[in-house]
């Protein structure tokens, strides 16, 4: 059991994936109702890489700005605060979610592509089923639900042989093996990371339960949306990891969201089109 080692890492800020202080400050400011655009623009502009990405993505086909955007302030005025927040988060997430997770058998490009697709499909489901959820919140929750794997990946080597043996006749979700060997599931680690990054509770609850939406306490509807999106992306093979297709879609999630058999079929068939539409974001 590697639990104590995982604990050590979880307590050591220097060993954890970090988001820049600019991103934290921006997110903090955005949680206040009376956020000031000039103030926000100034904060974002402190980080040149994020600034460049905000301007680049604001002009991309994905966000379809009505006129060319040259500054962060213009981006905020034209696309709105929420969209710029999404772009800032995307940039931060890309830094964290694009690394090879060899032990999970996931390459950086696959991890990033699948994270984006889960995000996008979650947001589409919310819109398609007209659910009373902010679609940007659905996007962000979907984007971050795999982040815990990044921490657990580094502990695989000592138990790799045993995990492989267990996998041969494994009938349970891979997260059961994560718990068995590391003392944590990647969902628990994601929850821990998001709390550390001061994300709102409605978001930490989703990443903590997206594979078991019936356990969600504060946001079962959103958790169910991200659940369905994540399973469909796995089934399509994009970002499919060592766990394979080991988690079935929860009947609870279907019930919560009203997603039907026909909807599932439609979402699945359109995954490649969804991916094509994300081309600009894939290459942030």
């Amino acid at each position, binding site marked *: 059991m590697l639990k104590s080692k995982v604990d050590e890492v979880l307590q050591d800020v220097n060993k954890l994936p970090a988001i820049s202080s600019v991103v934290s400050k921006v997110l903090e400011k955005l949680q206040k109702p009376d956020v000031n655009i000039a103030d926000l623009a100034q904060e974002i502009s402190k980080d040149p890489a994020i600034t460049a990405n905000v301007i680049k993505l604001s002009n991309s086909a994905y966000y379809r700005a009505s006129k060319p955007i040259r500054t962060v302030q213009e981006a905020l005025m034209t696309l709105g605060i929420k969209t710029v927040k999404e772009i800032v988060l995307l940039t931060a997430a890309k830094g964290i979610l694009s690394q090879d997770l060899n032990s999970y*058998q996931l390459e950086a490009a*696959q991890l990033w592509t699948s994270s984006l697709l889960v995000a996008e499909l979650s947001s589409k489901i919310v819109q398609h089923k007209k659910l009373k959820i902010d679609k940007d919140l659905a996007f962000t929750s979907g984007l971050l639900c795999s982040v815990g794997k990044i921490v657990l990946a580094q502990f695989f080597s000592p138990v*790799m042989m045993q*995990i*492989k043996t267990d*996998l*041969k006749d494994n*009938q349970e979700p891979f997260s059961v093996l994560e718990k068995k060997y590391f003392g944590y599931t990647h969902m628990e680690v994601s929850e821990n990371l998001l709390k550390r990054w001061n994300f709102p509770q409605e978001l930490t609850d989703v990443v903590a339960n997206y594979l078991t939406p019936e356990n969600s306490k504060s946001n079962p509807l959103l958790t169910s949306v991200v659940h369905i999106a994540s399973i469909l992306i*796995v*089934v*399509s*093979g*994009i970002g*499919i*990891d*060592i*766990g*394979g*297709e*080991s988690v*079935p*879609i929860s*009947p609870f999630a*279907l019930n919560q969201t009203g997603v039907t*058999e026909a909807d*599932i*079929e*439609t979402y*699945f*068939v359109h*995954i*490649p*089109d969804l*991916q094509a539409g994300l081309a600009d974001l894939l290459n942030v």
Partner: protein
Amino acid sequence: MSIKSKIINVGIADIKVGKDTDVLRTTLGSCIGIVLYDPEQKVGAISHIMLAKDPTGKDASKFPHKYGETALPILIEMMKQQGSNIGQYSCRMFGGASMFKGINSQFLQNIGEQNIAIVKKFMEEKKIPVIVEDVAGNEGRTISLYCDDGRVLLKKAGMEKYLYKVR
């Protein structure tokens, strides 16, 4: 892998051909990767299909590579354009995972199975031998076809091995 080799990623609902030092690679869940390889000419192709048939009847004309019934004839045609005809190559198939037994999505339960069935039926009709298959189960698979000798590197559930059978 030689220095000159070029890795060509075959996306979801995509078909790619390669030859000599090319390496074709794709990752599969419930989808099927159909590998054709001609050992004499060192020409290979992978088709990555999502579903056996187009459930809407409207999508296949726009995206024929998504569905077995429209993708497989194109795959054969693409091999032909490389100078390789039926009789010169055999077929290997991978993917088609699913373990969603007993849940209430008939669709998800059956994707893998139906994908496997349509490929087998097509190959039988065209008299293309299926010489290797690694299908079903609940594992994701990544396959790489090395066009220099036709070997396939199969990665699944923590294991990786080369499959050398090409005829």
